[in-house]
């Protein structure tokens, strides 16, 4: 997310450009620090008609995407409930919630693109601008940052940007990912890994680029519960195992 200063600079540039070209309506003047929403000062074209529900005859939708969205819609009493899973599915196909992706979802769900745009812009995991194919979310919330997540994020972002194919990787600092036991941690294309140190960064990026499982011994899926009193081990043996054991019943 841009800082207010960047947004302000962007707004000023936009104004200059508009004034020079004389093509776009002037943006509304406001103090940038009053708003935290990027794009709040982009002028609206009042001449244009609002987009309606897309015409199925004119909107080609990949058949697999259509089937997936329709399956989600069937799960709910109200089809609009499928907005989140449908947008996530379209994002998997298109890489981000592009106008085309939103148009396709809107066409299948029979809602307006503006409705979906409003939903997509609310959620952190739905991207409203083009991003790299691989997502690396670094948790920088309180527990992780106490364990050095800010340094990890800086190192990861710098290394990803410097390396080849840096624009393929979308490194983001993310709010608590719910894995404070492996702090500092990251979610790499949905796979939780941790605890990470700055020294793990090259290996992590190499694994992402090569399409290998990322840092297999640091994956959360393999971690046992920390409580020493958990696990009774009084587990009834499987009949087959019992029979296989010598002297078993």
């Amino acid at each position, binding site marked *: 997310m841009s800082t207010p200063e960047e947004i302000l600079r962007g707004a000023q540039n936009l104004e200059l450009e508009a004034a020079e070209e004389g093509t776009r309506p002037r943006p509304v003047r406001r103090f940038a620090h009053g708003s935290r929403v990027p794009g709040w000062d982009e002028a609206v074209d009042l001449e244009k008609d609002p987009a309606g529900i897309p015409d199925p005859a004119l909107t080609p939708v990949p058949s697999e995407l259509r089937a997936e969205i329709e399956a989600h819609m069937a799960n709910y009493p109200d089809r609009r409930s499928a907005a989140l899973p449908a947008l996530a599915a379209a994002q998997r196909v298109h890489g981000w919630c592009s106008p085309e992706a939103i148009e396709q979802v809107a066409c299948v769900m029979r809602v307006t693109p503006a409705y979906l745009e409003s939903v997509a812009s609310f959620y952190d995991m739905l991207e409203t601008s083009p991003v790299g194919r691989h997502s690396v979310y670094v948790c920088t919330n309180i527990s992780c940052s106490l364990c050095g997540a800010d340094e990890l994020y800086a190192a990861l972002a710098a290394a990803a940007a410097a390396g080849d194919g840096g624009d393929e990787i979308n490194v983001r600092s993310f709010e608590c990912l719910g894995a404070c*036991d492996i702090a500092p941690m990251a979610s790499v294309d949905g796979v939780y890994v941790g605890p990470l140190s700055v020294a793990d960064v090259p290996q992590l990026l190499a694994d992402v680029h090569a399409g290998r499982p990322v840092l297999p011994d640091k994956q959360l899926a393999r971690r046992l519960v920390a409580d020493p009193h958990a696990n009774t081990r009084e587990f009834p043996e499987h009949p087959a195992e019992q029979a296989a054991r010598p002297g078993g019943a």
Partner: protein
Amino acid sequence: MMAAASEGGRAPILLFADIDEPGLNTLEVYERRGGYQSLRKALAMTPEEVLEQLKASGIRGRGGAGFAMGTKVSFLPKGSMDKYLVCNADESEPGTFKDRELMQKTPHTLIEGLIIASYAAGTNRSFIYIRGEYELQADMLDAALHEARAAGYVGENILDSGHSLSLVVHRGAGAYICGEETGLLDSLEGKRGNPRLKPPFPALQGLYQGPTLINNVETLATVPAILAMGGDEYAKLGVETSTGTKLVSVSGHVQRPGNYEIELGIPSREIIYGLAGGPPEGREVKCWFPGGSSSPVLKAEDLDVPYDFNSLAQAGTMLGSGAIIVVDDSTPILDVAMKVAKFYRHESCGKCTPCREGTNWTVKMLERIDAGEATPMDLEVMASVQEHIIGNCLCVLGDAMAMPIGSMIAKFKDEFEAHMEERRLSHA
């Protein structure tokens, strides 16, 4: 469900009894360890009897608010309208990761608890709203649900009891506010996750305007254990106003971060030092959040407060989601406050002004302190901003920032002032 024998004063382990058994996420292994027996037991009773068991157990919601579950179920109106049961699996309170462990390793426990709760509450449609980041856990739930459906535990006329239930795992897309129950409902309806005005409470008018029961993962996952041992027996665990066992997630500056199942009412010191190993060698606890980053902080002298709902409330804080975050003396309190405030600024949905502006201005004032531009008055202004947020919004997200920040200003005033002065001099 089996309970481990009590040893050394430790409570029986209910939820974590076999948590790391290989294959526990599959129906075959889960049934072999006694899974779905509680469901059979429940379906043999009337819904009212099941509700009585839940009430007798005294279990309070494990999500954050700590509302008695049995009472909540009984708020649902009787009648044949469409009623819903929603499991809140949008575990996003910073520091909390207990539900993740349950859903990943024993998804069937949650599904079984959910079916029993739906039977008691008379709901026929249910949803599990899981946060989008938990991909592995959502996949585990989906696979478990598929098995449960095939085995006839979910669907029409479950085990010939006449009770039917549909269940859908709904994945969120990354928003803290969707853990707030009405924000969750809006999100589940396919909208932006903005909280609603209460009342009407979801029990009367919730999802799709129908009566809706919303429970946390851990609460529902405890239900099979309650049915297995009986509500009265369960109520003997813990202390009078906080019965049972609780999963606590310990993180931050501790040597053994992780999830622990404790009996409510044990001293907090035993959790932080005894189980989690305390801060690294040579460091001391500076402050700790007893229930996620939304709870007012406590200091080292409060370590002997019993860890239960009422004792923590008396100490001026709350048990919340059961997430203990320990901060040691190597961290400036300003850094902690800044992280907390920035998080809530990012996550404020923007619907109510006190929260939207209050979180923003708190961050600005903290940044001013750090930049050496603050005046001593700023600390008072910041404290008053917190007071003006609390209780003035539709939901408690603003309060969730105001309470810890307010407590930090009150308890570490000297440090804030020293920090302010030091920065001012170094930037002069």
